């Protein structure tokens, strides 16, 4: 558990430092020395929050596939939106339901919903309208056809 927590802390620290560095006009040693303790504090806060809400991450390989496909999805779905807008008929969105496994532990299922909602919202054509923890369902609104529908 300690090893996994160290990995989790390292990942959060790396993410927080990346956000800091992304906002810099030029990266200097001093900035990195300020960024590191701030990022460690953020990582501590993230892990603390997860423990308080009793969240539990279980990494899934499909998330990596979805993330890798995201840049292509953004370009393709943006082009489809442009095409839909250029047509005289206005695009009508549709709402669909994505069902998750019902036998999954509640905390693992919550993490799955959070990550999938984030990945879905990152693609231009769709966003998550609602999630139902009891039914293990996610309501997704789609404006145009998605590049790789689930």
């Amino acid at each position: 558990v300690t090893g996994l927590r160290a990995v989790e802390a390292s990942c959060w620290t790396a993410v927080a430092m990346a956000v800091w560095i992304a906002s810099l006009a030029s990266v200097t040693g001093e900035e990195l020395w300020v960024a590191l303790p701030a990022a460690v504090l953020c990582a501590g806060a993230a892990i603390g929050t997860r423990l308080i809400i009793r969240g539990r991450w279980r990494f899934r390989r499909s998330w990596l596939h979805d993330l890798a496909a995201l840049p292509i999805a953004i370009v393709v779905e943006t082009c489809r939106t442009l095409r839909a807008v250029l047509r005289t008929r206005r695009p009508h969105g549709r709402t669909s339901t994505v069902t998750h496994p019902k036998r999954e532990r509640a905390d693992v299922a919550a993490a799955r919903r959070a990550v999938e909602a984030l990945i879905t919202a990152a693609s231009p054509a769709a966003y998550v309208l609602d999630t139902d923890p009891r039914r293990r369902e996610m309501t997704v609104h789609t404006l145009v056809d998605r590049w790789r529908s689930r």
Partner: protein
Amino acid sequence: VAIAVSFLEVIAVGILIGAVVPASVVGMRGGPVDRLSGLVQLAPAGAAFLMVFAQAVARTDYLIVPLTLTLISFTGSLVYARLMAPRR
């Protein structure tokens, strides 16, 4: 009069016409749920435009604006989506 246009400026205009304008149009037509779709698209498209534009004009200190926009717009979209979710 010769006007020098850099490659990044061309990309910035491309994003503006190809992504920001369509997202704005979607955000102005249809029902609330469809309009929210436009708003959801507008934030990343705007952030991408601002990022490329900051590089094109060599003002990387402006990058904090799209970064903040991205972080705030995501949570903002979640709030709007929550308000428009079907009642159970």
